[in-house]
Every structure is written in C-alpha cells, then in structure tokens.
C-alpha cells in the first residue's frame, strides 16, 4: 500500500490517509480481503504520528471501507462494492468539475468537450488492442 503525505497542503494528514486508502480501494489497487498495514508499521513507514494513523483507520472503519478483525489486523471490507462505486463516481466528479472549469477558461463549449472525450476513448481503446 503506497501512500504519500504532504504536510504542507493544509489537508490534515489523517484525512490524506483516509482519502488515499479510499482511492486505492475504489481504483482496485486494494481488493476486498486485503490486509492493510498495522498502525505502528504505517506510522513508521510514512513517518507520521501513530495516533494520526489510528484516527485515519477509525474513520475508514466507520465508513465501512475497512474492517478490524480482533487480534489479527485490519482488512479491506468484503461489502465494499456499492460504496466503492459511489467513491469511484465521487473521484470522477472531481475530475469532471476540474475539466469543465478548464474548458470554460479556455472558451471551449460543452459539446466540444464531450466530442473530445469520445475521440479520446476511441484512441484509448485502439491503443489497448
């Protein structure tokens, strides 16, 4: 599990961990049943206070993203799929907002943006073949 912390951007560190774990789950880089590192291990790996990691895990547990199993560790929840879909859409919504804002600045109409998305999709599927 790779997480990157930037203490200078104002977002509390525990929240950066929460967001990135959610992202890793939503994007499939963490699968249901995967174990996430113990608090102490992640604290040392990220060089952040262990209480910060504990708070992030608590938050993730409350949101149902991970489940704590007594005495054995913390795992990505099995029942993660409907939530994961919501998360995926949330991530895409942010990207879409950024794209639309950019398009407005550059004076590009919405129809053109949609056309561009279709074109890019074709290019992508072609290169993947």
């Amino acid at each position: 599990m790779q997480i990157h912390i930037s203490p200078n951007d104002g977002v509390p560190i525990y929240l950066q961990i929460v967001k990135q774990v959610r992202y890793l789950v939503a994007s499939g880089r963490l699968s249901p049943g995967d174990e996430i590192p113990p608090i102490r291990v992640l604290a040392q790996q990220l060089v952040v206070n262990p209480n910060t990691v504990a708070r992030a895990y608590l938050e993730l547990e409350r949101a149902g993203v991970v489940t704590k199993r007594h005495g054995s560790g913390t795992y990505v929840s099995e029942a993660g799929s409907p939530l994961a879909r919501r998360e995926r859409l949330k991530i895409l919504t942010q990207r879409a907002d950024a794209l639309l804002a950019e398009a407005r600045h550059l004076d590009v109409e919405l129809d053109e943006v949609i056309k561009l998305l279709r074109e890019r999709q074709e290019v992508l599927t072609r290169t993947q073949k």
Partner: protein
Amino acid sequence: MKTDSSPPKDAAVEIRNLSRRFGAKPALDDVILAVGRGVVFGLVGENGAGKTTLIKHLLGLLKAQSGSVRVFGLDPVTHPVEVLGRIGYLSEQRDLPLWMRVDELLRYTRAFYPKWDAAYAEQLRDQFGLDPSAKVKNLSRGECAKAGLLLALAHRPDLLLLDEPSSGLDPVVRRDILEAIIRTVVDEGRTVFFSSHLLDEIERVSDQLAMMVNGRIVLSGSLDAVKDSHHRLTLRFETPQTSPPALAGVLSVNGGGREWAVICNGALDELKAAIEKAGARVVDEGVPSLDEIFVARVGAKSLNR
C-alpha cells in the same frame, strides 16, 4: 489511543507559570504547559522566542525564577540525577568531544547511563552509517547530528528532548531524526519533546504543540484541535473595500478590492454569520497549514503589541 489537552496526573512534563528574565529582557513570560506520557510534543517558535531557554529549564540547567518546572513529577534542579537519567537530550549545538573516536564516544557516554543498551547503540551506529574509528572532529554536520541522536537514544530514555534537531541539516538526516521520533513513541509509548521552526515536521509527527512568540505561549493544544479551530476563508464583498475587513477571530488578512483571504480562529458558523453581517460571502474555504496558522498568529501578536 487518543490524546487530549488535559494532562494525566503522571505528566512527563508540567510547567506552571514559569517566567524568566535575562537582565531587563523577559525570556519566558508566564509559561504554562503540560505534556502527557507517550505524547510527541512540538514546540514552535522563531529564533529567540524562548524555546531553548524553556528546554534548559527542563534539564535543570536554569532554575525557575518564578513558577515551577516538573519532569516526571520531580524538580530537575533539585533532582538532577533522577531526571537526567530518564532524559535523552540532543542540543542544538551538539557539543561532542571533538578529540574522541566514535567508538570511544559511545563507551564514554555509556558510563553515564546504567540503562544504556549496547546492542541498540550498535544497531543505530550501523543504521546511521557512522564509522566507529572516525574522529568526531572529522564528522560532517549530518554525522554529528546522527551521533548526537544516537547518544540521546541508546539508553532508551523515557523522555526524548530535542532542541531544533533538524536545524541546518539535509533532508536525508532530517528524515532519520523524524523516524527516530516516531520509533520512540511507537516503541513502548515513550515521550518526545522537540522544538522546531519547521512547521511541516511538527505537523507530521506531533500529537500536541505549542507556539511561542516573545517568551509567551500564544497557542497550545492537540494538533487536531488546532487544525480544526482555524480556517482559511476567501471573502467576496459586493463592492471593493479600501481597508481590510475588521472581524472578530480574524488573525491575518490578505488581498484587496472585492476579494480578501483571511486566516481565522473560532467556530465556523459564527465566523460565517459575522462575515455575512459585514456584507461579504465566503467563496472558498479550507484548512490552513500549520505554517499559515503560525505566520498569522505571529503577525496578529505583533499587531497587538
């Protein structure tokens, strides 16, 4: 797991109404601090704010002129052996005996600490890449810091006390120091007290922090509480304003015309109500970094003076 600002009875550090003058100049002014056990405590302040003076009181190197200082419930001035035996200290100067070799330095320091862990010392020496036969005077600045840190850690102190540990060091050594801080609390929940002017380090590793300006504590509490109670808001006024908006809770103002960015302290809904009353609306809001909070606090303080 969670730490709050009220200290447990067995606080590692407890300072009550400590004041100190050097001649006419007040160095510490009515400082009140409590650090619970197992906490990483970060002391923030500009050069000359009084951080080192405060740390010298914890070590018993300075006697309280008024107020009291307790480390593990003891006065460091009257119980130096008991207190110093439980503290691992890295000074900003890192005054090491220059004529010794690294292995001699380890053996020499070991004699002072009954709890010295030779295997741990050796592990740290290896991890820090310190050559045992190197002369201290030939060590680089970073190696000196690592050697000092090794000496502070190797007797597994209950309280690790670091005065500006990162000052003047490259990022690799700074990371070694931060890792040592984390390892210290993760490992048996010991206590760390460190001063720094690098706010991103404090934000990264502390549970609790205090900000010092001109010998006074201007802000202290858990990192979460400090972050939660400060806001970065962008205000937009209907008409251009010629002077910054005067609002309660605002620590710093930046901008001009219609849009002003403010760093403020308080409950968000109350702040927003006051802003609306002043004829503006909030167009953007976020959490300021510790750096921004500190700069705003220092600015607010000098305005009041």
